[in-house]
């Protein structure tokens, strides 16, 4: 347990068994759900390789069985109690295996959100959640966001980073607009169905995927800014989750220069891109970057000027978990500790102190 109490903004719970979703899925979809097991995932996979024996920590399997992250009791003991977590934002990643279009995609995501509320978010006051949406069907995603917008159990909208198009593309606008209207940040998180992740095509190894994931986030950031998303939706806030942030200085230096030199091309962009990033973006820490000279980490944070925007995350129970008391590459002073472990998350999330409990 460390002080101050931490807010863990990236925790992954999941279905104990695939069938558990059926309690929340209209019966007309059950046959489809059974028949499509494994199919969407196989068809949409962009990962030709995987980390060692799967994505989970090898010491996080619940004693009663089931995959890591599938047991409420064990997640409470193994993460929340063990590390003194005050709030954990749950992001189930089942959407990766769900259809992203049409009625079926809509029904699956609605069922998943109902399951999350019923089995998790109303069971422990430390838990709050992400709204899962069919990202590639943005109108339907907007419907789901509006359906959940008055439910204070949800604090963000989960958008998996491997989209079919960069998020500044106009077709995603209804989804972004619904989030802005609901006052909920969009959390762009590793995972998804579409893009190549790199700017040049597929890679061979998981190691490459892991090292190059910032490409996807950089693409979304630049796309949203240059396509005027934040001019159209001045209330929209974006969290880059599992993206890293140390690449930000060089990108912003270059992007600001491009804007100065080529601004007339993107006529909707009235402010320097770096100014927009500092106003609209937050970043999570995990997987924390580990420079050879550890002090360079703080130097880089200084270059970004994002001391008020960096939020601690464990990514529990995934294999690249960051331990709250061990992961930091350098000592933080008290002020930075408070910001990164707690205050910055409170600045972007609306946590309800008196949420209805069942």
């Amino acid at each position, binding site marked *: 347990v460390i002080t101050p109490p931490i807010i863990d903004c990236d925790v992954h719970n999941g279905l104990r068994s695939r069938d558990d979703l059926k309690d929340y899925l209209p019966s007309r979809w059950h046959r489809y759900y059974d028949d499509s097991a494994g199919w969407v995932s196989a068809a949409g996979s962009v990962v030709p390789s995987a980390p060692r024996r799967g994505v989970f920590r*090898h010491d996080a399997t619940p004693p009663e069985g089931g995959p890591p992250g599938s047991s409420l009791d064990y997640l409470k003991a193994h993460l929340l109690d063990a590390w003194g977590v005050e709030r954990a934002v749950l992001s189930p990643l089942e959407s990766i295996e769900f259809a992203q279009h049409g009625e079926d995609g809509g029904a699956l995501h609605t069922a998943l959100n109902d399951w999350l509320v019923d089995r998790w978010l109303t069971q422990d006051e430390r838990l709050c959640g992400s709204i899962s949406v069919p990202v590639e069907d943005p109108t339907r995603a907007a419907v789901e966001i509006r359906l959940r917008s008055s439910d204070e159990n949800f604090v963000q909208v989960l958008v998996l980073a491997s989209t079919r198009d960069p998020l500044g593309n106009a077709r995603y606008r209804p989804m972004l607009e619904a989030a802005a209207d609901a006052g909920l940040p969009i959390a762009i998180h590793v995972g998804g169905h579409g893009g190549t992740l790199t700017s040049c095509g597929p890679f061979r190894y998981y190691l490459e995927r892991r090292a190059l994931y910032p490409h996807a986030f950089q693409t979304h950031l630049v796309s949203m800014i240059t396509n005027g998303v934040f001019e159209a939706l001045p209330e929209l806030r974006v969290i880059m989750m599992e993206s890293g942030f140390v690449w930000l200085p060089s990108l912003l230096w270059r992007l600001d220069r491009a804007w100065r030199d080529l601004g007339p091309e993107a006529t909707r962009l009235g402010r320097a891109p770096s100014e927009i990033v500092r106003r609209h973006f937050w970043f999570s820490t995990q997987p924390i970057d580990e420079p050879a000279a550890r002090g360079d980490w703080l130097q880089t944070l200084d270059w970004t000027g994002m001391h008020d925007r960096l939020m601690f995350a464990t990514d529990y129970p995934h294999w690249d978990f960051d331990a709250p008391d061990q992961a930091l590459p350098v000592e933080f002073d008290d002020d930075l500790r408070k910001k990164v472990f707690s205050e910055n998350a409170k600045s972007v999330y609306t946590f309800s102190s008196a949420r209805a409990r069942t």
Partner: protein
Amino acid sequence: MSTRTTLSSKRLASSLVTVTAHVVGKLEEFPPGARRSVTVGGRAIAVFNVYGKLFALRDNCPHQGASLSAGTVTGSITSPGPGCYGYDRNRAVVTCPWHGWGFDLCSGRSEFDPQRTRVRAYDVGITSDAALLRKTADDPGPAEVLRIENEGDYVVVFT
């Protein structure tokens, strides 16, 4: 590969000059395949039994402190050159349960940076030497006192 280290009184006597012997349990509590964390002098030490051979490492990964005793023990993948792979089952490697760093169970040296990244390895052996057992049972702090009931084989970690 059931090499079994039996320690003579003489070796123990000389070891005690520079190191401390800690009886950490009966041998049958560490059967082949066992990976157990024991506390010795306030330190967590992971004791492994791999096909009858005992190993002991500090039970904290030098990266972020995960328990290596919750890791996976395998042989070692070797590659003498491009396109050639081998599996050396005579070397034992533990893979950290979190970020997958591999450590040689014998030396504690990491797979990816053996010179600079390592975890402390301890000598470990088996003894039934009554003198040693009395000595270690009476000697160290209260937390480490092990009640010796009968003659038999005991696992000893040297720190």
